[in-house]
């Protein structure tokens, strides 16, 4: 290959442009992934709607009618998904005609639900992305979310401080708890070589079982009730809603700005902080980091602890902002959804942010789709579309090939985490 400097300058400029087009290509991949997901979902809608299947049976006598009725059904379903998750056109029109508090609340309702669902996922996704970018695979999201949630609950039960201090203390407890659990995996990795995947994965089981036990102890259980749910978080310990003056049904709470600030903080951490840069170095090339005088054991522990801290925070945001009490399956699939979100966002802070919001859209939109379509198209369809999109984003080569995009396969790596997750 020719040495860079010996290329004529105009070719250099072209190369430069090609390198910059890389970003645009990733955007195209996302766009096409979404398209593939929606088309795939469309076929499923036809297959699962009996009326449409009957109509396809008569395709040759009424081809036009078959196609248009299928298209209308699919379009209507996706319209409900979109309006249920982002903005409802009908209420938007009402708001423009008559700007009132109630109409404004109706316009904001879908987005509020989406962002509320996305909030803990943003923070959890960021926590995992920190690990993945440093080549550490924290699979213990579920357990660390539980720890964060339980400690926040414990603070809420044990103290009765003014709201601001109560919430701050909850955050501190959750962050420290998550950091300790994941940090322990980091210590084990750094000093004994125990693989963090195994350790964190086992810690999930441990935390689920500990949670199950705690919920029947007198500290957490409601006296006399045995439904497995814990005492509730007092109002002083809840994250305040910030649109409730418009309508008490708007559940968006202060967790969202916290998540937003976390995105900025992680962005800063990797771009500007010394520790963040060291983690990147250790993650990308531990040998070179050692030659440069970086103590990689310390980096491993710091990285795992930070990752766990954010997952603990995610648990706190979930329990104080959404659930307000703990149940035996509090951790749910959060730890694993967060892995997918990190993957979807390619471990970039803003990517994770929008990836989590995409999950929120599919969740609230899917529910709306099921509720408002005449044939009650199942909620799980939205999850299928989501899965197809994630699959496509994870394999850009496939999308590039399918749509004959400019040869960018070499520019876009298969994923951002070194081929592991």
């Amino acid at each position, binding site marked *: 290959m*020719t*040495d860079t400097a010996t290329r004529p300058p105009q070719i250099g400029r072209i*190369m430069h442009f090609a390198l910059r087009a890389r970003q645009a290509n990733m955007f195209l991949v996302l766009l096409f992934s979404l398209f593939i997901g929606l088309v795939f979902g469309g076929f499923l809608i036809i297959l699962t709607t009996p009326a449409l299947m009957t109509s396809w049976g008569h395709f040759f006598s009424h081809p036009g009618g078959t196609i248009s009725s299928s298209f209308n059904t699919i379009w209507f379903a996706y319209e409900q998904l979109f309006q249920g998750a982002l903005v409802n056109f009908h209420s938007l029109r009402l708001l423009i005609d008559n700007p009132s508090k109630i109409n404004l609340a109706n316009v904001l309702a879908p987005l509020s639900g989406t962002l509320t669902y996305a909030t803990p996922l943003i923070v959890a996704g960021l926590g995992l992305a920190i690990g993945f970018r440093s080549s550490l695979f924290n699979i213990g999201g579920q357990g660390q979310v539980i720890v964060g949630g339980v400690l926040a609950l414990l603070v809420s039960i044990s103290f009765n401080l003014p709201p601001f201090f109560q919430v701050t203390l909850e955050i501190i407890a959750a962050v420290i708890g998550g950091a300790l659990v994941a940090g322990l995996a980091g210590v084990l990795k750094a000093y004994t070589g125990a693989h963090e995947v195994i350790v964190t994965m086992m810690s999930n089981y441990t935390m689920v079982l500990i949670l199950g036990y705690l919920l029947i102890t007198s500290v957490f259980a409601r006296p006399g009730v045995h439904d497995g749910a814990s005492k509730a978080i007092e109002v002083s310990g809840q994250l305040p809603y910030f649109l409730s003056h418009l309508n008490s049904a708007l559940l968006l709470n202060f967790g969202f700005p916290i998540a937003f600030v976390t995105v900025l903080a992680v962005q800063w951490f990797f771009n500007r902080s010394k520790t963040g840069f*060291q983690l*990147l170095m250790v993650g*990308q*090339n531990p*040998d070179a980091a050692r*030659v440069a*005088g970086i103590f990689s054991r310390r980096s491993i522990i710091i990285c795992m602890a930070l990752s766990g801290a954010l997952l603990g925070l995610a648990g706190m945001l979930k329990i104080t902002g959404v659930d307000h009490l703990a149940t035996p399956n509090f951790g749910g699939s959060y730890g694993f959804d967060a892995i997918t979100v990190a993957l979807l966002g390619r471990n970039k802070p803003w990517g994770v942010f929008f990836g989590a919001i995409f999950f929120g859209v599919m969740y609230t939109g899917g529910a709306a789709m099921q509720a408002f379509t005449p044939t009650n198209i199942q909620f799980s369809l939205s999850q299928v579309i989501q899965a197809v999109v994630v699959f496509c984003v994870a394999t850009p080569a496939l999308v590039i090939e399918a749509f004959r995009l400019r040869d960018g396969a070499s520019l876009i790596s298969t994923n951002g985490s070194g081929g592991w997750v």
Partner: protein
Amino acid sequence: MKLELRGITKRFGSMTANSNVNLVVKPGEIHCLLGENGAGKSTLMNILYGMLTPDEGQILVNDEIVTIRDPKDAVAHGIGMVHQHFMLIPVFDVADNVILGSEPVKPWPVIDYKTAIAELLVLAEKYGFEIDPRATVENLPIGTQQRVEILKALSHDASVLILDEPTAVLTPQETDAFMVILRSLKESGKSIIFITHKLREVLEIADVITVMRLGEIVGVTTPSETDERGLATMMVGREVNLVVDKNPATPGDVVLDVKDLFVEDERGLTSVKGISFEVRAGEILAVAGVQGNGQTELVEALTGMRRPSGGEVILNNVNLHGESVRKFLDAGIGHVPEDRQRFGLVLSLSISDNLVLDQLDDPKFHNRFGRNLKAIKLNGEQLRKEFDIRSQSAEEPVGALSGGNQQKVVMARELSRELKILICSQPTRGLDVGSIEFMHRQIVAIRDSGVAVIIVSSELDEVVALGDRIAVLFDGEIQDIVPPSTSREDLGLLMAGAYSREVSA
């Protein structure tokens, strides 16, 4: 077999790696392909071996056009290749490696080792190789491993052998033995395409020399028509200074004092066995020796990467024994590691970031918002200009640079710190003539500025050219410290383990 490449052109995007290349290799000919890194030699050979398809042009075997889609086609047409990095499976034995992919079976699926070994021995005897078919490859010296690679190619009835930088990994003695093998292959009618950038070897063995530059053939010549200087000029496109210009050293105070140093490798075997030496400010101590005689462990101990099991490393009267790498760096030790890609650089990060890799604590790269990206970028641009690092900008990932430019990044970074001593391990391995000249000038310049320098190299030419004193390492011990005027033969003997008194006797 006659092999011909006609009008081969290969483009990667907007870059032309090979442009209208014509090459004829006659039967029984040793054809040297010479060129700097990035001149297009490897691309050309990868096309010939079916790993790349040319955009234009044809390949002719015995004057017939053939299509080579993959290495299997190449092998079927009698073309064999020995890669620079061996494609052997270390835990298999020699016979296993040779038959891998074309195992004789009788009855299926049992491998017929008897036949395989018999054939292997016949082949080895024919070309004068001495080889034990049952030896495990990882236990064999590099030179022998290379023979296994060659045998493997020959076992597929190759009549043209492509050897990609075969001598880069060999000791002087092994290289001599290798030349004998080449000649015997030639006598039996095999054609050889020998890729290298060592001019001395080319002149010694080649029948025809083809020189490539920037993807084009810039000259075809023979050893009798040219000399080292002529070849170097052709390769680089300008006059190259093959001899390192340097004044005699003016050694100052002792900077580094190593006393009775013992170092163990990761298996716990002692690989540095009680070494003592001093290095003074303003002098270059070259450590010569065949690879694997303790150089790696010695350098690791001197840079804090490995804790010695005994002895002392004293820098400016401060004992650094057991300190962290950070302390070693802060004490003023510069380290250009042996494997730059693995130990010297983070390939995915930009040139600028790599230029501050070990200077994260330096306040000049910080402001109150964290890392001072502007200062880091500026530093990158400055060093890029100063060290002539060839790239579009300092924000390009280091992985996109050629080997020579990557090495310049490592060197630039180390020299931009306050140094007391610079330790370079294999500073010019795999670099082309132009980059070697540049590196050598830098090393001499830093010496002249009063810094102590240690060069560890298995390249005899380099050791002799740079060293003010030469320490020869064999089996973890210093055989002798000799002046650079010592003859190559004596150095070779010292490297092979003969004590200096035997040499002088």
